[in-house]
């Protein structure tokens, strides 16, 4: 909206504009061409896709790569699995992150500093350190080979809590304070004042966590040995990282690998395009105050 309001003459000069456009164009090409290449290879025939070099245009269009991933690799079920656990998990995550974020904006809340550190430390723990015990934990909680396990592991991240908190800090605190004096309950203040104006923040957390959960590999690999509960990135990684050191033979053709990549990216891209306008507003990190 403000774009239109902007002063008419307040813009870059002609040559500057040209230069800016050129820089953007170069960046655009550098960032878009590899993906375009992946798309072209995914829609090429097997023979054409195994040729070395970079493909910018089709010389033999074919959808057999997509046929392969659905028929032979059977990606449909993993796709559904991923979609299901990611969506459910991230919705819960948004709610819980909003809760926690709200807690962290309370003025003179006892132990607030400690809580913040408690949250932030979790962002620094290397996975290798917890690898063994996370498995034992899941085993004790009977979360192995279950959708529940896939949903619960990685349910909360420090990052999304901090993101939510930062968004809440842009909301006027006095508004909540006056409502509190009027006798409104905490839950009511949270639900009626904070949540409605925090849509962009919620959307951002939703999206960022969707991306990371959708792509997560190590935990699902640990938790899931039932093939009917495999998730998409597991299949994708198995396709890309084929074990070349053994004398075994099975391997997926290049066009199928690229097709799998495109398929795995598509939902994220769609959500991104739809949510773009909210993301812009929601990504304002500001300062992490304590």
């Amino acid at each position, binding site marked *: 909206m403000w774009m239109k309001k902007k002063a008419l*003459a307040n813009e870059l000069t002609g040559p500057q504009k040209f230069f800016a456009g050129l820089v953007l164009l170069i960046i655009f090409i550098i960032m878009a061409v590899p993906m375009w290449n992946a798309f072209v290879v995914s829609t090429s025939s097997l023979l054409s896709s195994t040729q070395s*070099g970079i493909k910018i245009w089709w010389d033999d269009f074919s959808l057999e790569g997509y046929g392969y991933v659905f028929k032979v690799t059977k990606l449909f079920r993993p796709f559904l699995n991923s979609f299901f656990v990611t969506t459910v998990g991230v919705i819960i995550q948004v709610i819980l992150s909003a809760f926690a974020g709200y807690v962290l904006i309370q003025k003179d809340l006892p132990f607030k500093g400690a809580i913040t550190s408690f949250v932030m430390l979790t*962002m620094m723990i290397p996975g290798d350190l*917890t690898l063994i015990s996370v498995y034992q934990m899941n085993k004790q909680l009977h979360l192995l080979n279950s959708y529940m396990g896939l949903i619960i592991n990685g349910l909360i991240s420090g990052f999304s809590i901090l993101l939510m908190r930062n968004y809440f800090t842009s909301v006027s605190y006095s508004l909540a304070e006056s409502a509190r004096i009027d006798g409104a309950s905490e839950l009511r203040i949270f639900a009626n004042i904070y949540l409605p104006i925090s849509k962009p923040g919620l959307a951002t957390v939703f999206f960022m966590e969707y991306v990371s959960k959708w792509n997560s590999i190590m935990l699902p690999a640990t938790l899931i040995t039932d093939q009917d509960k495999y998730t998409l990135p597991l299949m994708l990684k198995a396709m890309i990282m084929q074990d070349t050191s053994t004398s075994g033979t099975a391997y997926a053709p290049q066009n199928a690998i690229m097709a799998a990549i495109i398929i795995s990216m598509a939902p994220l891209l769609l959500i991104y395009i739809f949510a*773009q306008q909210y993301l812009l507003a929601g990504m304002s990190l500001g*300062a992490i105050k304590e």
Partner: protein
Amino acid sequence: MKATKVYKRIKRYRFIYLMLLPVVAYFLVFSYYPLALGIFNSFRQVKILGGSKFIGLENYHNIIKNPLYLRALSNSIIVGAGTFALQFLWGLTIAILLNEIKSKIVKSAIQTATFIPYLLSWAVVGGLWITILSPTGMINGFLKIIQGDSFRPIVFMSEPAFAREIMIFTGAWKGAGYYAALFLAAIVTIDQNIYEAASIDGASRWKQIIHITIPNIASTMKVVALLAAMGVLRNFDQIFMMANSSILDKVQNLLYLIYNDGIIQFKIGPATAAATLVLLATMIISFTVRRLLRYDDSYRD
């Protein structure tokens, strides 16, 4: 006296604490308990099928006296810092230039295209760039056009001289769109009146970018830097996907080393000890970055 006051405040916030409960419970179970167990294991010689024994600091001692870990630490930091710097500039450039674009469609298209790499995992991005940098790939094809037929393709991925630069570039390539989105989000919240006032005073648009836009998103920049510092030692997937024996010396980082020496060989004790040191190093780095940025000073109300 004081204790009762605190108690009163706690009581006042009891519902608030309740809201925090699931999060605390989750972190205790899935982060802190495994963390404690991991650290516990780091002081032991753990056999994979049970039967561990306390060996004190031996695991740590072995790591510290192994020069590879020091090299890996410096690789981690060099590649991490380089990636951050490039990604930062790259993202900032995109954000500032995008802000100057009027056409909504063009803006959205560029933003989407630059964001796509962020959506992909390293398994995908690594493979893509290895192909592009191969002797028959796009870069060599391009160089050939410039230099003519006598040009001999460069095997970029086997040149130690390019190794870190490639990791830095591809790392930044993957994340630049993400930083751009963060910066753009901060830019759009800047009060437009400031620009208008400056414009009336005769400041050119370029000057406004330097003197208004950039200072106004400084706080976002600091957060970005801090987050990067927290993640700098956790880069594994990129190196795992893209390293090969000719360049390993230049890019092998801590987690890669832990994987190679610990996980692959089922050595739980050394792996957890090394990971504990990574955690400590991360805390030190984050703390230092925080200090350097005067992060806390500038935001105390």
